[in-house]
């Protein structure tokens, strides 16, 4: 075959630029740690990477929702716990009021129960950040108000709206409960207990104690339910976190390079490039017949 100097030089240039291209590709991979920088470098892997990254983002928002729901429920549980404590104490006091025969002592108990009533209403009006925990959708409205009268009444300004949170695709959780239904019997039992003690009416006190007992049980059940919800959220959160780390592993497998492999390839390619340069230099420095003519 006829070979000319131009062909040799063109070949040398081509080998050098191909070798340099490979070197630059490996350097890019080694320095970025990614297998590709543009989707077109690897359409299949990048399509999966796009979907995986979006799932990671979506799950992250669910995790945030779960955490915020957990905080809400914890605040709610604390308030319920406080009210439950008050209910227990009120029940004990009222029971002691039944056995008490002295009307003086009974009205002292009544005063104590009155304090419990105010504390319980205050606890039922607890706010989390800016929102009232127990007023349904009316989170800006103070739900319970004690109205004086004969007898005193408690008004509920909230509604029965259930606060729903998304804790996963198509997974919703209701955070609140009908506070009016749960708390009112307690407040009313407290009022009647107090009034009965005040009035020194043993039958009425006994009736109020029975009411208090039922109300306390309801509150206790509600507290337990809230605790269960928190447990469920924790489970969901653990599950999502596990999913996240599995997704991250998948994403990493799609787009992260094996550094050991890339760096050893880079080493190798550097040697190849150096050799190409040397060979190219030697080829181009080759003499031709003109050099030998005298």
């Amino acid at each position, binding site marked *: *075959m*006829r*070979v*000319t*100097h*131009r*062909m040799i030089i*063109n*070949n040398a240039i*081509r080998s050098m630029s191909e070798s340099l291209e490979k070197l630059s590709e490996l350097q890019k991979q080694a320095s970025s740690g990614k297998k*590709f*920088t*543009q*989707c*077109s*470098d690897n*359409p*299949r892997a*990048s*399509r999966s*990477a*796009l*979907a995986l*990254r*979006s799932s990671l*983002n*979506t799950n*992250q*928002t*669910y995790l*945030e*929702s779960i955490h*915020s*729901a957990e905080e809400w429920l914890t605040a709610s549980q604390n308030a319920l716990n406080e009210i439950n404590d008050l209910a227990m104490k009120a029940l004990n006091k009222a029971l002691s009021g039944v056995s008490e025969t002295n009307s003086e002592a009974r009205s002292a108990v009544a005063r104590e129960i009155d304090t419990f009533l105010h504390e319980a209403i205050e606890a039922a009006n607890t706010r989390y*950040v*800016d*929102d009232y925990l127990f*007023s*349904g*959708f*009316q*989170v*800006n409205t103070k739900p319970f108000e004690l109205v004086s009268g004969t007898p005193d009444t408690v008004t509920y300004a909230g*509604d029965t*709206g259930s*606060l*729903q*949170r*998304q804790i996963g*695709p*198509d997974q*919703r959780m209701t955070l609140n409960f009908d506070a009016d239904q749960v708390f009112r019997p307690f407040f009313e039992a407290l009022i009647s207990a107090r009034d009965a003690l005040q009035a020194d009416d043993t039958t009425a006190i006994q009736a109020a104690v029975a009411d208090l007992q039922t109300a306390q049980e309801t509150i206790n059940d509600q507290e337990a339910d809230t605790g269960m919800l928190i447990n469920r959220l924790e489970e969901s959160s653990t599950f999502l976190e596990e999913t996240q780390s599995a997704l991250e592993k998948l994403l990493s497998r799609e787009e992260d390079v094996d550094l050991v492999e890339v760096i050893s390839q880079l080493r190798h390619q550097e040697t190849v490039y150096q050799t190409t340069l040397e060979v190219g230099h030697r080829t181009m420095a080759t003499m*031709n*017949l*003109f050099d030998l*003519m005298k």
Partner: protein
Amino acid sequence: MSSLLSSLNNVLQSMLAHQKSIQVIEHNVANANTPGYHRQEVKLGTRPASPAPTLYHEISAGQIGQGVSAEMVKRFNLTFYDGRFRTQTALGKRWETTQQTLSHVESLLAENTSQGLINKLDAFWAGWQGVIDDPTNLALRSNLQQKASSLAVGLNRRASDLLGIRKDLDQEIIQDVDEINEIADQLARLNGEVANITGMELQPNDLLDERDRLLDRLAEYSDIRIGNQDSGQIMVSMGGHSLVFGTETFKLETAPDPGNSNLVDVVWEDGADFRAVEGSLTAYLDDRDHSVPAMIAGLDEVAATLISEVNALHQGGYGLDNSTGLDFFAGTDALSIGLSADISDPRSIAAASAASSPGDSSLAGQIADLRHQELLSAGSATFTSYYADQVAGLARQIQEAGSESQNIDLVIQSLQSQRDRVSSVSLDQEAANLIKSQRAFEAAARMATAVDEMLDRIINGMGLVGR
């Protein structure tokens, strides 16, 4: 009849022929690096022998040769490889151009960065998710506005960038058409000169080089067919329509097409439709009218679905200020999408399904659920999967164009080395030829001296016997 004087003439012819060989070698060596240069060589031939046979010729021994002459200057080329080379150039250029254009589109979409549209969509849904968690929190509502606006701006920017690319491609098309017309003019002019010179029985080798260079360049724009005409002229056709015929040209024209956003339509000057075959012009036309508009249509579908679905839900909801029936997004497509002026107050964003329910976020929940619904592509894809498919489709197109262009590049390289094998200058060969011609020239000069001495003997040494 031969004489010593004619011998002197033979020797002179020989010296002239070898001198011509050396001149051509000089030309070869000088153009060793000139692109498109084809090696030339003087073809030596014997001059007609004497005497010519006639009925009454002088009786003597045989015909005697009359020395050497330079018959022609041969140009080393292989038309077969030229045609193959140009066809592959047109193919390769098409894929290369497509790859460049679409890579540019891809880098504008920037989907593999944190500024990707899918990221923005995710942030938008996360914004709604935040509002669900705490519907009375104004900071979270403002955050939603911000994320929605960033999503809208992301769509706007991509749509306007892609429209910009279409306009740029339009300019490239006009430029290509101008170049083609310019090359056609030059080819027609060269045809004229070539015909003149071949008419004088000479070889217009350098003009042929020039013409081949122009044809190589022309093939980058569109595949061409070449036919031979009389006296070394060629005719060139492109997409089945004549471009150059002898010294005549048929031009391409560009005219704004009102049916295609006033982008240009390419037609022949006689009104015939232009059909590009491969080449960069095909790529530009194809990308401008198909690939890029398909991406714009994809963005438009995302934007339009987003606008209609979010607005439809949003209108049925209630804001913190009990406003209802409001739009969330304004606009109709990717270029015009923006936040509706209705919700410039974050309180007006509807999260509740009923009036006067500040804690209700069930409507926001429905809107956030849109991300999981298959609303696009005739109900078969979610926002994310639809757009990811678009991006992956583009990526595949780029990869395909890239590998096609690489494969064809290999073919072109091998064709180029086939051409070089025949046409390019080998310095060793030229040096050897130079020595060969130089030696022959020297020998001819020595011959001249011998003949001169013989003449000297005849003129000055004869008839002087005994003197």
